[in-house]
């Protein structure tokens, strides 16, 4: 049969618009989402989990924190007792990390030192956080003149080399754990306040904030339900990177004799006291030095990973 025979004669075919019925696409059906729901946080957490380096660093940090709490209890020695007959002994079954120049057990001393270094680092970071969030939040939320004046103030403060100020303060106040933390915080909060300010200024003008305002949302609701939760990302990342910086600063202060004072010890002060002639008793230096390096490395790597996980630019 030829094609022509089968061809339909269109003229004979009387098709009217009424003959057609609109089937349409079922809109509701097409809107069904197959995947499981994930909040923005869970999304970030998943990304973080895939970052092996960051997760390893996190585990290392957790282990170190646990060890600093539990470690000293595992040894029969304490960190204060001098045993002048057993000075400068290398690591052995008796003294797992050896002893120092006053015969104190290095294992216990090292983990106590870690405890103190971590406490100082975390405390300083937390205080920086509180002051920074409040100061930066006010600057960012109100903007305008308030922001201008407050910013001028922190700019001037920032341009004074903060390490020098910290040193001077400690010379005056005489170093102790409390004064060290205070001295470290004196200008440390400025960085955090700028991060918070930046986030606030950016978020303030986003359309979802405007939308809430147009519905009549008050300042409280805007701040606590919209602005702050969306600013949390960079805040946490900054926090994670402030801690190692504080620990490092404390170690540095120890080198000036302004760190934690004997008989207490931080990792930094232990390194400092071990410095002279350390090559004869390397364990006195290597354990605290190794530990402090590990802590700082882990915080930095974890902070980097956290930043990558929270960065919306990487979102597909």
């Amino acid at each position, binding site marked *: 049969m030829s094609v022509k025979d089968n061809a339909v004669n269109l003229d004979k075919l009387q098709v009217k618009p009424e003959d057609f019925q609109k089937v349409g696409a079922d809109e509701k059906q097409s809107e069904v989402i197959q995947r499981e729901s994930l909040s923005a946080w869970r999304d970030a957490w998943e990304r973080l989990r895939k970052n092996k380096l960051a997760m390893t660093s996190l585990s290392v940090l957790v282990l170190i924190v646990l060890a600093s709490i539990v470690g000293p209890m595992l040894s029969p020695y304490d960190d204060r007792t001098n045993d002048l007959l057993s000075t400068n002994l290398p690591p052995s079954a008796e003294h797992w990390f050896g002893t120092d120049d006053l015969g104190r057990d290095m294992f216990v001393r090292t983990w106590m030192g870690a405890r103190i270094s971590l406490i100082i680092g975390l405390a300083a970071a937390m205080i920086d956080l509180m002051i920074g969030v409040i100061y930066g939040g006010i600057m960012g939320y109100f903007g305008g003149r308030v922001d201008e004046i407050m910013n001028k103030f922190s700019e001037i403060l920032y341009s004074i080399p903060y390490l020098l100020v910290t040193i001077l303060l400690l010379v005056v106040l005489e170093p102790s754990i409390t004064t060290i933390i205070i001295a470290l915080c004196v200008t440390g909060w400025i960085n955090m306040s700028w991060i918070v300010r930046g986030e606030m200024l950016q978020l303030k003008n986003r359309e979802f904030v405007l939308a809430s305002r147009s*519905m009549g949302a008050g300042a409280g609701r805007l701040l606590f339900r919209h602005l702050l939760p969306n600013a949390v990302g960079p805040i946490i990342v900054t926090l994670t990177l402030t801690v190692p910086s504080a620990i490092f600063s404390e170690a540095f202060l120890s080198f000036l004799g302004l760190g934690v004072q004997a008989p207490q010890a931080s990792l930094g002060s232990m390194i400092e006291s071990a410095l002279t002639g350390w090559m004869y008793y390397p364990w006195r230096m290597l354990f605290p030095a190794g530990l402090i390096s590990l802590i700082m490395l882990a915080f930095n790597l974890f902070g980097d990973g956290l930043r990558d996980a929270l960065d919306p630019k990487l979102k597909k």
Partner: protein
Amino acid sequence: MVSSNNLIEVEGLKKYFNVGKNRVLKAVDNLNFYIREGETLGMVGESGCGKSTAGRTILRLYEPTAGSVRFNGTDIYKLSPSKMKAMRRDMQMIFQDPYASLNPRFTVSDIIGEALDIHNMAGSRAERKKRIEELLDLVGLNPDHATRYPHEFSGGQRQRIGIARALAVNPKFIICDEPISALDVSIQAQVVNLLKELQERLGLTYLFIAHDLSMVKHISDRVAVMYMGRMVELAESAELYANPIHPYTKMLLSAIPLPDPEVEANKKRIIMPGDQAGPIHDASGSKTGAYNLENATLIEVSKGHFVAEPYA
């Protein structure tokens, strides 16, 4: 159905911004118009002509530099904070960017429900849930979308969520600030049709801000043309497109590509005289060169058709 009652009356509205020393950005400069109940007024102009600022100022998201906006006779700028909050139930906005207009950390239920929470419109949890599902249904979305997060939706769907949010408080007037500019062309039609449908069903009044002239014509009863913070022409839709008078309107219209290659090839583009300076003035109030709109008032050239001097 357009009634003869003016729902919105804008008089002498100005919004100026200070940029640097002695420089003022006159984003909105003396707007005067009304919108009747049930009507859609389209507002067109190029980017930067002040239409978005106008929309936000009318909604009192910005405080005006001068002028008044009356909603059913009440000047909203004179309201106390608590009265203003109540007024916000009557006036809502749909935003341009479907990605930035929804809080990424809120679920759809939170986003739509926020309005209900602020104004205590839902008695119990069950009531709230029901209302949210109603709204989702109204805009053509699935009710189990309520527990999901914005990033799981497409642009068109997010825009619908934004519409549902605006409808939650039962507003009478909605400002649509370029609601389709960020969407794919095929989705644009869907959203515009949805808006029209809702207008009929719920008796809404729209101020439709856009720069896509063909789309504006489709949805608006009357159209206003904005240029550098001022209105230069205002007429019924069909009339404006058929008989544009102001050179700027003509320029805008001449830029619309028409789906007819012969017409396109023979089209002549019209350029505005002295069109370099933007709406930034120095302290003395004079702009350099350009078409000076300073004292241009709207003159009624034919019934319902207004044009700014000196082109009237």
